[in-house]
């Protein structure tokens, strides 16, 4: 089953979040958009957060590095980190091919439902990307 990118929410800083209910709790799965990955290109390193860390929407939770640059990862939602994709940093070359399934980075148990309200839907995010060229 592949994640439908048109049904995801996006932060202006290019993270996607897939909101779903797991065991009666709202859990957001977070990754980096295909557009952002294409811009970054040639990834060499990824720093992940620790399990259990409390994040506030907009807070930096890790970083991804390409050959040229370091890019911070920002959490699109507030909540506790309940899962971390530990295999990802060793398999960064797969990330570009599959940003929405294999490319999930963390899962966050959303503590503040309001924190998702400022996120963009797919159409609005695409518009932002088109304007960025």
């Amino acid at each position, binding site marked *: 089953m592949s994640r439908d990118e048109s049904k995801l929410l996006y932060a202006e800083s290019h993270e996607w979040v897939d909101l779903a209910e797991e065991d009666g709790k709202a859990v957001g799965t977070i990754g980096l958009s295909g557009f952002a990955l294409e811009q970054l*290109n*040639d990834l*060499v*390193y990824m*720093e992940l957060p620790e399990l259990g860390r409390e994040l506030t929407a907009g807070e930096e939770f890790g970083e991804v*590095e*390409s*050959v*040229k640059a*370091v890019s911070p990862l920002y959490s699109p939602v507030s909540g506790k980190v309940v899962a971390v994709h530990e295999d990802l*940093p060793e398999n960064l070359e797969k990330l570009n091919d599959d940003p929405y399934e294999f490319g999930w980075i963390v899962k966050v148990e959303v503590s503040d439902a309001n924190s998702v309200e400022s996120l963009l839907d797919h159409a609005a995010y695409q518009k932002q990307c088109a304007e960025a060229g």
Partner: protein
Amino acid sequence: MTIELAKTPLDAWHRANGGKMVPFAGYDMPVQYESIVTEHQACRNAAALFDVSHMGRLRFDGDGSEQFLDHVLTRKVADLPIGGVRYGLICNEDGGILDDVLVSHVETPSQRRFHLMVVNASNREKILHWLTPLLDDFPTVTMSDRTELTAMIAVQGPAAMDACKRLFSFDPTRLKYYRAVITDQFAKPVIVSRTGYTGEDGLELIVRAEEANRIWENLLLAGRNDGFSAAGLGARDTLRLEAGMPLYGHELNESIDPLSAGLGFACTLKDRAFVGSQALQQIADSGPSTVRVGLRPEGKRPAREGCPVLDREGQRIGEVTSGGPSPTLGYPIAMAYVDSANADDSEFKIDIRGKLVDAKPTKLPFYKRPRS
């Protein structure tokens, strides 16, 4: 306010071929086309073409040109034969590095001789302003800025020389390393020099601006079966870092002298007086304060420019000047300045954005091409 960026004669080609353009030293330059890593590997395994037209090209004509250049350069060039190329530095009176340059001595088919100095793009204006008043004492020497009239293309890699064998009237495989010649392609002049900034064998070509596209296409065509690729500034930087070559604005600036930068080989101090020579002699006598070292941080996370370097006890003793992943070696590498007292330390630590990472000193260059 928008700053008008200069364009190289190959600008349209870059755009038509997916070049990701970024401002660099006042020019709109391709940082990459498809991928920095792919372009880097093309250079190491086949050959890569670089548009380096942004580099400054200054020509010196007239009697006394070699005396003038000898007066402003750390390295002796008065004895540079026709066809010779030499790397040197321009320093201020305090020995601070204003630029690192290549000087060639060439002769036209009509036996006109001149010197050509290639300077960093970011320093071109500064060097023009620095040299102009110094020329007052050399009234027979004229300096002309040829940058905008010409283009400069580097073709670098193990397959570069063979592919260029028949491109010009003169077969460039006959050139030795650090030699240059004026030849032609279809009767249009080309300055060919066996130099580069990648650690690979290859050529740097200077042609009239209007010939740039033809030469570029000819090079791509000549290497079509060998895997030639155009490469941007991104790959140029990762290649020169692997080759342990300093880059102005990173390893080199006005507050560092050539001896502390590990460029003593480019300073001829004995029996010579030149701008900055007294200061450099003093530094040579007392010993340089820093050394440039290669470092290999443990793990996969690259150290970047500005990361503090610590000794084993955690004392800050230096700073990373360039760092990133090495596509050829598969692990991160960095160049740094550390205090001379720590020159022979066997362990360092690098503070990578708050995390201390062990780093081992590595002899420069990190990468040396296999001898053919």
